[in-house]
């Protein structure tokens, strides 16, 4: 479907407003002087690791498991990233090498 320029601008505006609203809401509800309820503080403490887990799965949501290549490029690359990161503890190195390995795998090894 081809969108008209007006539709594109309206879509971008709607998305931008939605993003700003979701980011702003917690800070408006609980300004500096006001202590948020304990349950909110609790969620703020425990959510970051949970969210990273969700984001990883979200990134992989469309990987085909039952058909070729069965998520193997993703599995191999992620295993590589985990080992490399635990070993060298260098964020950029892990992301760079992991992505390079993945690109190599999908372009040269698991060619469908």
């Amino acid at each position, binding site marked *: 479907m081809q969108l008209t320029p007006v539709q594109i601008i309206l879509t971008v505006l709607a998305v931008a407003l939605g993003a700003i609203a979701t980011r702003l809401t917690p800070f408006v509800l609980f300004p500096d002087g006001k202590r948020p309820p304990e349950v909110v503080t609790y969620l703020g403490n425990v959510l970051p690791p949970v969210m990273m*887990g969700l*984001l*990883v799965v979200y990134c992989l949501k469309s990987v085909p498991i039952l058909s070729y290549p069965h998520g193997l490029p993703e599995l191999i690359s992620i295993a590589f990233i985990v080992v490399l990161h635990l070993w060298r503890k260098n964020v950029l190195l892990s*992301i760079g090498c992991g992505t390079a390995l993945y690109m190599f795998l999908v372009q040269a090894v698991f060619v469908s």
Partner: protein
Amino acid sequence: MLEKYKGFGKVKAFLIYTLCDETFSIVSSVTPPEGVEPKYFYLSISLLDYLYWVFGTLLGGLLGGLMPFDMKGLDFALTALFVVLFLEQIKKKGNWILGLIGIACALLSRVIFGAENMVLPALAIILITLLAGRKKLCS
């Protein structure tokens, strides 16, 4: 973030405006080094992310068609980023179980609701799990 961004005055508005997934991931994973004012530490991360985003998008739009090599698979960089940040998060004491909850709830939602509709149900399942397990997870 409510706690981290407390009392930052005018800077706070910009920090809130630029709090995307990636910035949130970094800000919640790292602590400001000693001798660096937290306000400017977080502001730098947010501002840099923002500029990378704007100029990266601009570059991609202008030059995207001219790439000399095959870009297939480059988008895995985002997955790699989240994998690394996940590792950074679960490294902290007692956090591995939380990371596991995130993955398990997201997988469950992906299986039940499918790839296109997994996010909101996943958030709901996560919320229920975290609230139900609050006593255990606090200790």
